[in-house]
């Protein structure tokens, strides 16, 4: 068990923070839902449909951030052979895939009334779809080997290969004349979203981030339990 010495300390901190994540998530989500559904202005063109943005944008942000987390963990697992990094990457992948799906689905619900179509194959939508496939490929590769440890490195390499997609997602709307609107929040001349809409958006982003951390801790606990069961089984057989 000496291999998990450091991760045990990590889990102690994570477990201590877990209630903070939970309470913070519930608090921010309630505030975010109140503002985004009831107490934020309509858009001058989109009307109430703008409220889909309060799910869509945070989901997109989480999808990209979790991929970045996963790829950095993959890199540190390949370079420094850090076992904890593997576990974080492996636990993050399904959460990231779910957020990517949420982003695509909520975007489709917004696109149908606003653009007039559920889906278009423009650069932004396609590159996000590729990211969804990369998450799927990562999970598949991780579980494709008889020895569960054997999939860790190939999956980490795949996660790093997929990093080329992240700048494409971010800048696709600037490089190409896409149907998807250009960046509204992270841009040189400041956000182009009215303050009354920006506040609930930030609150929802915070809520989604805490939700991710919460799920991550739960999944890490499960991973540690699984590792312990494997060890016990091997000891029992030996």
């Amino acid at each position, binding site marked *: 068990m000496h291999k998990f010495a450091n991760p045990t300390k990590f889990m102690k901190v994570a477990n201590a923070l877990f209630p903070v994540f939970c309470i913070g998530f519930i608090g921010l989500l309630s505030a975010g839902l109140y503002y985004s559904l009831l107490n934020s202005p309509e858009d001058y063109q989109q009307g109430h449909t703008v409220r889909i943005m309060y799910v869509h944008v945070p989901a997109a942000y989480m999808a990209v951030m979790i991929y970045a987390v996963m790829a950095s963990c993959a890199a540190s697992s390949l370079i420094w052979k850090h076992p904890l990094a593997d576990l974080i990457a492996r636990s993050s992948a399904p959460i990231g895939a779910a957020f990517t799906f949420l982003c695509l689905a909520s975007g489709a619900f917004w696109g149908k009334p606003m653009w*007039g*179509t559920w889906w278009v194959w423009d650069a932004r939508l396609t590159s996000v779809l590729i990211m969804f496939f990369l998450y799927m490929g990562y999970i598949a590769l991780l579980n494709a080997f008889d020895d569960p440890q054997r999939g860790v490195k190939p999956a980490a390499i795949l996660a790093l290969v997929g990093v080329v997609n992240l700048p494409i997602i971010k800048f696709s709307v600037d*490089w*190409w004349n896409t149907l998807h609107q250009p960046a509204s929040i992270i841009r040189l001349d400041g956000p182009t979203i009215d303050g009354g809409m920006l506040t609930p958006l930030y609150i929802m982003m915070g809520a989604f981030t805490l939700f991710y951390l919460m799920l991550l801790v739960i999944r890490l606990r499960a991973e540690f339990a699984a590792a312990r069961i494997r060890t016990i089984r091997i000891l029992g057989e030996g």
Partner: protein
Amino acid sequence: MSMSRARTRKRARMTVVFAGLAMLGVSVALALLAFEDNIVFFYGPTEIVEQGVEPGQNFRLGGLVKEDSVGLANDGVTNLFIVTDNNANVEVAFKGILPDLFREGQGIVALGALNNEGRFIASEVLAKHDENYMPPEAVEAMKRAGTWKHTQEEGN
């Protein structure tokens, strides 16, 4: 002997790294060169008029709906409007339901082909949304103050 072997190995590795970085530089240069031309999801009216696209060729047309150009054809279901980039105009006919965001002065993208009279017969019309999100009162206030600037009108 082993010393020199280690050295050749090191030198080979350096060569590989430099060649790789040089290739990445080439890649960036090529991409920048490509972006000097316009790679587009759609073509604008000026390009269509200048290029002289043949009738029947499918492509996407993008631009602004010209003010006071939206109307219905005699059959009562076909929408007629003009797409402009404030330089050239293309007449568009579309039989179907227009999206919510479709209005005069708004950016749209239409998929279809030119007919023999040079009118664009659209099979699909999509409304392009811009990056501005704000309540209607804020827009009114900005219009009154004269600071309102519609990004679509700067030409896309």
